[in-house]
């Protein structure tokens, strides 16, 4: 499929882009969520597995002293709410190991998501979206994550749970394993989205993508999206944005504080990434700290990086529809109760120039 990039002489009014009823309906649907303002929180420095290439165990944050006091977390959540945070992402190292703290966060800020390895089930009373990380087949998980029958455990814990989205991370080594894993997830009624391994700073392992594996991954993503439309939460433009050789920062410019000194408006103003000792560092604050920014193609990063570039995508009908598909995907993956619509743009659209 050939990529399209609109002629620079072609001018559309925003009203023209919204003229079609399907586009208008989708725009009105997604814009209701513009109030979401996120921050992220490492809940504990403990984990029940240890994976090659883990972001948590890179950099300084792993050495933070855990704050296990629920009242300290409750107070933090109240302060966060007071400064306008409406969406929390609970991560690192393994949040399922501190269920009481998850409950406190949910009681104070009820919109959010938990990033978990899925080995230990999180109780239904915590009504956040739950992202279960999948890094390949069970043989690969045994090699990279030192866990036997990991996918079976994950599916056993979250089959039929409408909070759960499985997140398949494509590394250089596991591209061919995606098809059987996605089939297994689909057969079990699980929903899945895609992530790209993005090297932590200083990482010298074998999981980093090359131009060849980026292209191959894009092709596999598009194929799986076609084959499992009811279970794969993704869009053609998501595949383009996350497998581009330039990476997210190179393509769009990253709005997270770590790369954005402005505190005027947007993420540069509101986003914080708290460590498990409840401190945060503006110089390190982004959705997955200690990632090498030049290699960043994280699904979590894209959810803000691409979504925030509304203006840049309001250039022509296809580019705008591709952006709407991206935002629709992001909301379906991250916000409980939001159901993904059909993708409006089935073709391949190149990211607009900045």
């Amino acid at each position, binding site marked *: 499929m050939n990529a399209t990039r609109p002629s620079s002489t072609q001018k559309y*009014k*925003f*009203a023209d882009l919204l003229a079609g009823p399907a586009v208008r309906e989708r725009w009105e649907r997604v*814009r209701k969520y*513009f*109030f979401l*303002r996120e921050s992220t929180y490492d809940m504990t420095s403990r984990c029940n597995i240890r994976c090659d290439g883990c972001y948590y165990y890179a950099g300084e944050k792993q050495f933070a002293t855990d704050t296990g006091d629920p009242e300290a977390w409750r107070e933090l959540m109240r302060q966060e709410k007071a400064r*306008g945070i409406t969406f929390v992402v609970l991560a690192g190292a393994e949040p399922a190991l501190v269920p009481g703290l998850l409950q406190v966060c949910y009681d104070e800020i009820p919109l959010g998501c938990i990033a978990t390895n899925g080995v230990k089930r999180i109780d239904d009373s915590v009504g956040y979206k739950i992202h279960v990380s999948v890094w390949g087949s069970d043989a690969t998980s045994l090699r990279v994550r030192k866990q036997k029958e990991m996918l079976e455990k994950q599916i056993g814990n979250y089959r039929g749970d409408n909070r759960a989205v499985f997140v398949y991370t494509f590394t250089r080594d596991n591209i061919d394993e995606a098809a059987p894993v996605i089939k297994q997830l689909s057969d079990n009624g699980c929903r899945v989205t895609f992530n790209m391994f993005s090297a932590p700073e200083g990482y010298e392992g074998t999981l980093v993508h090359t131009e060849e594996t980026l292209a191959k991954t894009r092709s596999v993503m598009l194929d799986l999206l076609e084959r499992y439309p009811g279970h794969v939460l993704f869009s053609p433009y998501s595949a383009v944005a996350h497998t581009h050789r330039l990476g997210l920062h190179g393509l769009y410019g990253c*709005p997270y504080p770590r790369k954005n000194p*402005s505190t*005027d*408006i*947007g*993420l540069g*103003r*509101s986003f914080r990434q708290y460590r498990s000792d409840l401190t945060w560092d503006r110089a390190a604050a982004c959705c997955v700290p200690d990632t090498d920014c030049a290699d960043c193609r994280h699904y979590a990063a894209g959810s803000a990086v691409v*979504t*925030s570039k*509304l*203006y*840049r995508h*309001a250039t022509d009908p296809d580019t705008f529809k591709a952006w709407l598909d991206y935002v629709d995907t992001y909301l379906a993956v991250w916000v409980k109760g939001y159901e993904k619509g059909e993708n409006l743009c089935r073709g391949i659209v190149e990211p607009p120039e*900045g």
Partner: protein
Amino acid sequence: MSATIDEKALQLRVAEIIIAELKLQDITAETFDPDLDLVDEIGIDSMDLATIVLVLQDEYAVKIDEDDYTKLRTIGLIAGYIQERLQAKA
């Protein structure tokens, strides 16, 4: 359209657009203080601002640069920015 627009009329129209796009309640274009800080005092975020900018571009047929968003903190500043752009086009 003439190269410039009466400043008060321009501010009122910008206020109307902001009220309509953000579905603000309990405020009218006439009562909207043009010096109110839209970020600090109204609480608008970057996505809201991007939406308003796109609608203003349609309305006045001027280009508002992405890099200039952060300057557009009040209705008065937005109206002044549009006025400058209209004059530059004339």
